[in-house]
């Protein structure tokens, strides 16, 4: 980790807060346009190509907890993402007994170090949901506005997939997809019988090179650990570091932004931040400020940016800032495939994600809920680590004894050991990720009573699911059970019912939260205009998912990247025209 603190006299054309998908893309596009850029990141620097930073290809015995998750790496001890749901000294709170969990990554590349690299374009319908079902609002832009940027993102970063010609699942510039794994073929057998389509996954790993800068995938299934040859996408390896090599980009690490500073005319003049190294306050000046700190963190910064010219914070005058917070829905089910007991062994790692998935396939007019979901699949002979062989008290009964009767659960000894081996690689998992309806009543706001350890007021969340999402989760559970059964699998555990909202994950858990500073043509009902420029501060822009009017049943990253590129082009244009 490297520390870098500059004197407060430094001035830049643009300050970018955050180095994830949105901030990373802005740093690349703006610096290539010849602008001087400061990237201000709350965490440390990180480069997986450095041997001392590498967690990829480390076996579990190089971790005393054998790869189990920790507070700051809840997805595993070798996971690249540093931060988690609960960061020491950086609390958030919840209101009226509602739930919201907030996953943050404090490091260069932000949460692109964590995500599953599922890289889906929003389709034409995804920008016009209100026109289709009367719920929520349309975006002020449509697919045609963003398509050229999706095309550029595909070519710059790389995504594998197959051209399908499905209207609302637009095709792109795809690299060759990898062949399916065995469990994916079992699931496909079940899905076929249920008339649920399954197509090759669309993930941003390089199955073939796109340039000479990045390596090609060597199939270790560990993208979540960050790739030492940069064969998967993360904003640090593919955007921020290349931008630093080529352009005028300074990276400020361990720098926690308190507020955007403004002048008497209400224009942004830079940022004020706390260095986590010496706990002192620093100020940087710039002509333009770009927030890419994540939907909620950017909203928090805007709320905290109070001044005489912006007494309610920047964008805080119309009561929309922080509102319409929404996450994807999520529910899951797993099963065990008896035909895979004692299966043949071979290297089945593949890429760090699914080789096949299911895009939304039904017509909501015939259903009792709005909006759809896609299905992600997991399973196979993944790396044994912490947790391997657990649950034999419940799992052994799926095996048969010599007389063909179910074995007794639990036990010990050589027989137990053999049965762990017999069951290895026979489990499959199905997970739905769906679109929720954005609501004014789901929001984040400043908690008047709590500050973080830097003295910065923290967020308080208020979020409830509605019948729309609960019915969608019910549909997921019914579909999953049908696919599992048709695939020859035995569904595991109890089918989730109304008592648990059908297993619907708590808001925030899917880590697709968006919408807090949404864009719109009407300054009364939105915070940003269609170029992601603040209505009330024309040299302040937001390039993370805060601008989303609605979060489709697609993972948001590809759209963050495309929108950030589009906004960055607009910033260059406006600077050239001297409009800002």
């Amino acid at each position, binding site marked *: 980790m490297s520390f870098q603190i500059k004197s407060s006299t430094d001035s830049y054309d643009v300050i970018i807060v955050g180095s994830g998908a949105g901030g990373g893309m802005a740093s690349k596009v703006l610096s290539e346009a010849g602008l001087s850029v400061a990237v201000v990141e709350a965490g440390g620097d990180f480069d997986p190509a450095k041997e001392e930073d590498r967690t990829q*290809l480390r076996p579990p015995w190089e971790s005393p907890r054998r790869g189990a998750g920790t507070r700051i790496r809840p997805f595993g001890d070798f996971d690249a993402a540093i931060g988690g749901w609960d960061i020491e000294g950086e609390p958030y709170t919840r209101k009226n007994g509602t739930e919201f969990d907030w996953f943050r990554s404090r490091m260069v590349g932000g949460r692109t170090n964590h995500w599953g690299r599922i890289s889906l374009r929003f389709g034409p319908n995804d920008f016009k949901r209100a026109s289709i079902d009367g719920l929520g609002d349309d975006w002020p832009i449509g697919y045609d506005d963003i398509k050229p940027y999706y095309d550029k993102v595909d070519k710059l970063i790389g995504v594998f997939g197959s051209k399908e010609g499905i209207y609302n699942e637009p095709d792109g510039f795809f690299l060759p997809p990898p062949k*399916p794994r065995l469990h994916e*073929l079992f699931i496909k057998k079940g899905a076929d019988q249920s008339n649920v389509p399954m197509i090759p996954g669309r993930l941003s790993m390089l199955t*073939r090179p796109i340039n000479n800068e990045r390596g090609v995938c060597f199939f270790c299934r560990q993208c979540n650990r960050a790739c030492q040859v940069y064969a998967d996408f993360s904003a640090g390896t593919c955007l921020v570091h290349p931008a630093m090599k080529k352009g005028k980009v300074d990276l400020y690490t361990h720098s926690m932004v308190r507020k955007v500073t403004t002048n008497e005319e209400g224009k942004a003049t830079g940022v004020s931040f706390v260095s986590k190294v010496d706990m002192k306050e620093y100020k940087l000046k710039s002509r333009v400020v770009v927030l890419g700190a994540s939907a909620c963190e950017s909203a928090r910064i805007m709320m905290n940016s109070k001044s005489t010219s912006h007494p309610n914070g920047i964008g805080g005058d119309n009561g929309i800032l922080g509102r319409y917070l929404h996450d994807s829905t999520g529910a899951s089910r797993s099963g065990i495939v008896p035909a895979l007991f004692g299966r043949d062994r*071979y290297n089945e790692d593949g890429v760090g994600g699914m080789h096949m998935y299911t895009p939304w396939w039904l017509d909501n007019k015939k259903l009792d809920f709005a909006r759809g979901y896609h299905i992600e699949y997991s399973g196979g*002979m*993944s790396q*044994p680590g912490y947790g391997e062989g657990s649950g034999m008290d419940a799992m052994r009964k799926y095996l048969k004894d010599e007389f063909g009767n179910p074995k007794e659960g639990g036990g010990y000894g050589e027989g137990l050991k053999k049965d762990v081996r017999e069951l290895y690689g026979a489990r499959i998992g199905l997970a739905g990720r769906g679109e929720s309806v954005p609501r004014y009543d789901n929001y984040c706001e400043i908690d008047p009573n709590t500050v973080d350890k830097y003295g910065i007021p923290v967020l308080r969340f208020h979020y409830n699911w509605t019948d729309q999402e609960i019915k969608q989760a019910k549909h997921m559970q019914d579909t999953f059970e049908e696919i599992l059964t048709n695939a020859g699998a035995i569904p595991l555990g109890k089918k989730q019912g109304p008592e648990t909202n059908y297993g619907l994950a708590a808001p925030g858990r899917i880590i697709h939260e968006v919408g807090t500073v949404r864009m719109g043509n009407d300054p009364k009902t939105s915070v940003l205009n269609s170029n992601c420029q603040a209505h009330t501060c024309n040299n302040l822009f937001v390039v993370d998912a805060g601008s989303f009017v609605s979060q489709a049943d697609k993972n948001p990253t590809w759209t963050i990247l495309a929108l950030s590129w589009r906004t960055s082009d607009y910033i260059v244009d406006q600077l050239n025209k001297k409009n800002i």
Partner: protein
Amino acid sequence: MNRRENLKLLFTGSVGTGLLLTGCGPEEQALPENALLAGGTKGYRTEEERKRDQELLSETFFTEEEIKKLNILVDIIIPKDSESPSATEVGVPEFMEFIMKDMPNNQTPMRGGLMWLDYEADEKFGKPFLELSNDQVIEIVELVAWPERASPEYQGAVKWFNMLRNLTCSGYFSTEAGWKYIGYKGNQPNVWDGVPQEVMDKHGFSLPEKYIPIYLKPEQRGVVATWDDEGNLIG
């Protein structure tokens, strides 16, 4: 080895397999027990993580007597056999020692279960657990190892034994010997070219016809991709 060299090897395919791991010095290839003692998790760590691992590694949770009990129990759960070592041989109790400190909510149930052994040993045989014969130990294990059969008075101890079994399996199959036993073949650079044909045949699967022309062809994985304006791969 720098990234450029890695790339070169990976582009050429098979050579990468062994060499990619040569960055690890001999000390990183040490036995699991030693790796546990040598320090915390390898690879990128924050100061906070490094400090925490060091603290946990310097503390002691289990008493000597508790370790003796664990040594007996984990080898009953995973014994040595003709093809693989026992749980104690791969350091399962040391792993559990760390987990108790890393996940402290395990501490009370684990300690409680180990204490119950003495109570039960005294009830049944009139002496402490560590003085029991092998047969007597098995008699006690039998009371709690089979959740469906266990009588209601042992339900608490059954839960503890489930936890012990889970942790023993975790600690065993996350070692090199555990990998070998379970037959894990991954975690090494390769070119994925689908499920081996004989496995496909065995389960009666064939690849979806329509995707066969577009799946990754291993011989092309060094060729920089180019597309026409319609998004068709042309190079």
